[in-house]
C-alpha cells in the first residue's frame, strides 16, 4: 500500500509540473502535428496513399515527440538536483520509476488523443467500429513507449550527448511496440478485414508486461551509487 501511495505521489508530482508549465506538453503536440502535416505535404496530398500511411505516421510522430518529452521529464529532475533528493528521500526507487513512467504515459496519451482527430481529418481516415480495441492500442502503445523511455531517459539525461543517445537506445528497442501499434491502428482505420488488430493489441500487452516489470527491477541500479 505504501508502495502504491508513493507511485501515485510521484505520478501526481510529475503531472502537476506538466500542468503548471503547459508550454511543454503543447510543444510536443505541435511538434508531432507539424510532422504529420509535413508527411502529408511530402506525399503531395495523395488521396490514395495517405489513408494507408495514416497509422504509421501517427505513431512515428508520437515517437519523435516522445524522445523530447522523456528528455524533458528527466531534465526537470536534474535542473536543481531533485533526482538525488528523491533517491535520498524515503521513496522506493521502483516507486519513483513507476510513478514517472505512469506520468509519461499520460503525457503521451494526451498528445496522442489530441493528434488522433487531426490525423483522421488530414489523412481522411476513420475508425468505424472496435473502438475499445482502438483505445487499447492507443493506451498500451503509449505505455510501451514510456517504460523503456523512462528508464533510458534516466541514463541518457546524465550522459554526454544525451539528445543522440536516447533515440539510439530507444528506437531499436521499441520496434515491436511501434509496429504493433501502427499496424493495429492502420488495420482499424481501413476496416480491419483480416481481424488483425486484436493480435497486435495482445502483442502490445506482452511487450508492456515484459518491459514494465524488467525496467522496474533494473531502475534502482541506474539511479543509485554503487
Amino acid at each position, binding site marked *: 500500500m*505504501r508502495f502504491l*501511495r*508513493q507511485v501515485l*505521489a*510521484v505520478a*501526481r*508530482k510529475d503531472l*502537476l*509540473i506538466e500542468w*503548471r*508549465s503547459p508550454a511543454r506538453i503543447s510543444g510536443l503536440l505541435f511538434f508531432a502535428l507539424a510532422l504529420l502535416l509535413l508527411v502529408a505535404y511530402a506525399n503531395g496530398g495523395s488521396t490514395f496513399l495517405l489513408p494507408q500511411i495514416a497509422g504509421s505516421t501517427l505513431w512515428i510522430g508520437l515517437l519523435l515527440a516522445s524522445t523530447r518529452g522523456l528528455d524533458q521529464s528527466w531534465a*526537470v529532475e536534474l*535542473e*536543481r*538536483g*531533485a533526482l*538525488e*533528493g*528523491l*533517491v*535520498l*528521500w*524515503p*521513496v*522506493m526507487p521502483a516507486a519513483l520509476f513507476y510513478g514517472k513512467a505512469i506520468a509519461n504515459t499520460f503525457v503521451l496519451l494526451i498528445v496522442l488523443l489530441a493528434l488522433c482527430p487531426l490525423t483522421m481529418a488530414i489523412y481522411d481516415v476513420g475508425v468505424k467500429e472496435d473502438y475499445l480495441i482502438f483505445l487499447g492500442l492507443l493506451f498500451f502503445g503509449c505505455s510501451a513507449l514510456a517504460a523503456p523511455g523512462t528508464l533510458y531517459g534516466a541514463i541518457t539525461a546524465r550522459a554526454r550527448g544525451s539528445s543522440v543517445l536516447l533515440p539510439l537506445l530507444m528506437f531499436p528497442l521499441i520496434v515491436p511496440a511501434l509496429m504493433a501499434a501502427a499496424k493495429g491502428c492502420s488495420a482499424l482505420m481501413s476496416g480491419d478485414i483480416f481481424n488483425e488488430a486484436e493480435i497486435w493489441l495482445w502483442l502490445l500487452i506482452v511487450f508492456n508486461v515484459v518491459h514494465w516489470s524488467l525496467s522496474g527491477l533494473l531502475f534502482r541500479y541506474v539511479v543509485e*551509487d*554503487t
Partner: protein
Amino acid sequence: MQGDSEAGLHVADVSRRFGRRWAVARASFSLAPGERLMLTGANGSGKTTLLRCLATALKPDHGEIRLAGECLWTHRDRHRASIAYFSHAPRLYDDLNATDNLKVWARLGEYSIDAHSLLEQVGLPPDRTEPVRTFSAGMRRRLAFARILMQKPRLVLLDEPFSALDPEGRTQLVKLVDTLCGDTAVLIVATHLPRTAISLCHHGIHMEAGQITWRGAHDDHPLLKGAT
C-alpha cells in the same frame, strides 16, 4: 567526542575515491546522539564527499558508517527517512511555487505538514504564488531548508548552510537548526564560516586533501585563532 554506546554515529576508516583520487581517505570519528560537529577545510578537501557518504548518496569504497548500530549503506532504505541532508542543490522544482514544492515533497515522504507555517519559519512570504524559477538564490536556500524541516531526523547534515544567506538569515538558520536537531539528533555542519557555525557545535574537525588533520573542541579551532 567518543560516543561509547552503539547509539549515535560511528564513522570508521571511511574512504571514497573518484577515478584515481581519494576524495576522502580514512575518515574516522564517533558522535553520540545530540553531539554536534563542525567540519572545516578548504575547497576540494573532501567535506562534501564525506557528507554525501553520510547521506547515502555515495557508497564508501572502504570503511563503514554505522548509525544507531546498523551499517548505514546496507540499511539505507530504512535510514534515509531519518537523515536530513541540506546540500548545495536546493532540490526544488522550478515550475512549481513554494507551497506546491513543499506539498510535493511532503506527499512523497508521507509527512504531514503545514506549508504556511513552514514558510513563515524560514522567513518566506507564505502567500506568494510565483514559481520558484523567479526566486533569488537566497530565497531558494530558505525554501530548500524548509524542505528538510519537515523531517524528524536522527542525523542532520548541512553543507555550507550559510551560503547566499543575509546576516539576518544566518541567525535565523542557527535557531532553526537548533530546533530541528533537538537534543537527540547528530549534527554535522560543513562550513567556511566557523564564526557563524561555532554557536551550533561542540566539536570541530578540519580536513585537508581528504584527510582529517585536526580535531578538538570547537573553541580551539585553528581557523578561529588565525583570524584573531
